[in-house]
């Protein structure tokens, strides 16, 4: 090493230390920090972006009603990107809990990523609300983990009933994303219910998320001549698979779950998706006044667009969390102080989070935009599901199926 490079690296070291020191100086302000993580980029970026928009709307509402404050403290939301990878989800939630010292966490959409992050929140005693992970295992991680949506055993049954009764079909092929806990779970529940209803699964094929060529599997499916294909994956692959199925001359309807819910679905699949159905949390053409009000607010903020169910669930998750924090502030102001960022890591914080958890768990008949939310003993919301049909390039309400 020449003396000049040594000098330069020495300078770099000093600069680095200075930056670290500056980074530490900013904390110790009294505020309420809430964490959010999601796939802002990556294969299913629309999930993370939708969740972010839902949380922004919940925060906007808090600003409009209470200047963005709860119990006199300002609420700040820290958003982290997990790039759609489970291992990254664990890393960013680790950061939210240990560095940002958040009092609660909102996320994820994908069950696989919620499952990666949930044990971290459970261990740290930080409540985590997943707006839209439907795999039953997510809330089984522990008593600090909640969700705002129905679970897959129900969603699978809904679609099985719809296939056997509403569409009156007997022979179905299944195409599962075997890298995705959500898809594997939904396949199992659909298969059980559909066979119990007298249907027959003619073949089960699988793919991996991120694949782009599905012709081999579709060729195998075509050879079995099913009347419909059940495809419980995410929207990116669903759109591509529908296109390739039509190219191979498969004309039967393709059925899916709430993983299809994205504004991009029809952009990717185009006309190949006409006459396909999927189960969802809400239908935007539902006349419910609460929902219609929400649609108006959303359209005002995001240039005339229509929110999807992921946005709605994230909004509900945010509002439930803020209401529970507010309840804590009025019921026991002393305990509430523990949620302040200046108490991070203290025993008071632990106690406050515990009480906050109890309040979330007691949520009963909360009037959400995605329906009335009551959390059961397993911290899952019990709600009806709707089935949407894709018709003329639009998602149209078809029917509601109750639990």
């Amino acid at each position: 090493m020449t003396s000049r490079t040594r000098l330069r690296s020495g300078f770099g070291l000093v600069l680095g230390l200075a930056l670290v020191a500056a980074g530490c100086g900013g904390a110790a302000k009294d505020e309420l920090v809430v964490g959010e993580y999601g796939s802002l980029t990556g294969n299913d970026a629309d999930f993370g972006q939708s969740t972010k928009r839902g949380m922004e709307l919940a925060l906007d509402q808090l600003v409009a009603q209470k200047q963005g404050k709860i119990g006199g403290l300002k609420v700040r939301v820290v958003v982290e990107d997990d790039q759609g990878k489970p291992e990254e989800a664990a890393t960013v939630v680790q950061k939210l809990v240990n560095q940002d010292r958040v009092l609660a966490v909102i996320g994820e959409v994908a069950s696989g990523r919620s499952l990666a992050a949930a044990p971290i929140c459970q261990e740290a005693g930080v409540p985590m609300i997943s707006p839209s992970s439907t795999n039953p295992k997510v809330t089984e991680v522990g008593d600090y983990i909640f969700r705002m949506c129905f679970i897959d055993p129900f969603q699978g049954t809904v679609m099985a009933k719809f296939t056997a009764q509403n569409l009156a079909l007997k022979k179905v092929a299944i195409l599962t994303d075997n890298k995705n806990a959500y898809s594997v779970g939904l396949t199992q529940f659909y298969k059980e219910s559909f066979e119990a209803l007298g249907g027959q699964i003619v073949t089960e094929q699988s793919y991996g998320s991120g694949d782009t060529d599905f012709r081999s599997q579709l060729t195998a499916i075509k050879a079995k001549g099913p009347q419909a294909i059940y495809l419980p994956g995410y929207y990116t692959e669903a759109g591509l698979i529908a296109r390739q199925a039509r190219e191979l001359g498969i004309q039967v309807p393709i059925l899916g779950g709430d993983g299809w819910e994205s504004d991009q679905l029809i952009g990717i699949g185009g006309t190949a998706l006409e006459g396909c159905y999927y189960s969802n949390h809400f239908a935007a053409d539902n006349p419910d006044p609460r929902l219609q009000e929400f649609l108006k607010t959303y359209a005002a903020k995001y240039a005339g667009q229509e929110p999807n169910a992921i946005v709605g669930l994230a909004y509900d998750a945010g509002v439930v969390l803020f209401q529970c924090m507010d309840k804590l502030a009025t019921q026991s102001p002393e305990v509430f102080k523990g949620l302040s960022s200046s108490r991070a890591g203290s025993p008071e914080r632990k106690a406050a989070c515990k009480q906050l958890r109890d309040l979330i768990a007691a949520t009963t008949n909360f009037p959400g935009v995605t329906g009335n939310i009551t959390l059961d003993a397993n911290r899952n919301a019990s709600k009806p599901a709707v089935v949407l049909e894709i018709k003329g390039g639009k998602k149209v309400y078809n029917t509601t199926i109750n639990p």
Partner: protein
Amino acid sequence: MSEFLQQLVNGVTLGCVYALIALGYTMVYGILRLINFAHGDVYMLGAFFGYYVARAIGAGQDPHPGKALIVLLVAMAGCALVGVLIERLAYKPVRRSSRLAALITAIGVSLLLENGGLLLFGADPKFFPQVVAARNLSLGGGVTISNQQLIILAVSVALMFVLRMVVMHTRIGRAMRAVSFSHTAASLMGISVDGIITFTFLVGSMLAAAAGVLVALQNPKIDPYMGILPGLKAFVAAVLGGIGNIPGAVLGGLVMGVAEVMVVGYLSPTYRDAIAFILLIVILLVRPAGILGKHTAEKV
């Protein structure tokens, strides 16, 4: 039977794409004894160039064969430029160093292109506009081929034929073969070795770009990491056929494509990527020089 034939059609189409990419690997290896690991990323750039051109000329809204051709040609031209730049800026300065230095440089260029792409194009996948409206043609017996698959077959066979003509029947082709034989002897005969190397990169990158656009036509999801796996598989295809050997690369690509599709169709999609490397291990054990490769004793 019809299912098997359909899988075969799918496999040959995929194989043609691997063959196009493998040609670039094998040509560069033949001339420089360098495995150009950035080649898969040039394929990715080809798809992205095609994407932006298609959007700029509105090829998605009203598909027209002329527009599709423009998309293909511009992407090929863009990548030819990128290929030449990579050679001039990254590989030429280390050409006199050890082969290991060149190999590591290649990996560096690959990482640069992937992460540069991430920065430039964004991490969320883009969807290639449908520049050719999909139509199905029945081949009889329940076997269908889409017009997109036909285009892939036709364009890749045509490009391979042109490449064959250039290499075997033109002056520059003869010069390429001479350089591949010996740099020193070729330069003593008055061949500009640097010029030939640049030309090789230009042609290889053009073929990769064509593969990128053709694949994007059929599987419209493109992202900056899309080149990694096809790049590796095409490299295996080149080794399989005998690296440095042009007909070998085509044969290797076809074997790989058909093997992959058959494994997915009849075994499990989990082994989709594994099959490439199983083939690689088998060929290295059984016939290290590749199917069409000549076995040469290493001089010590």
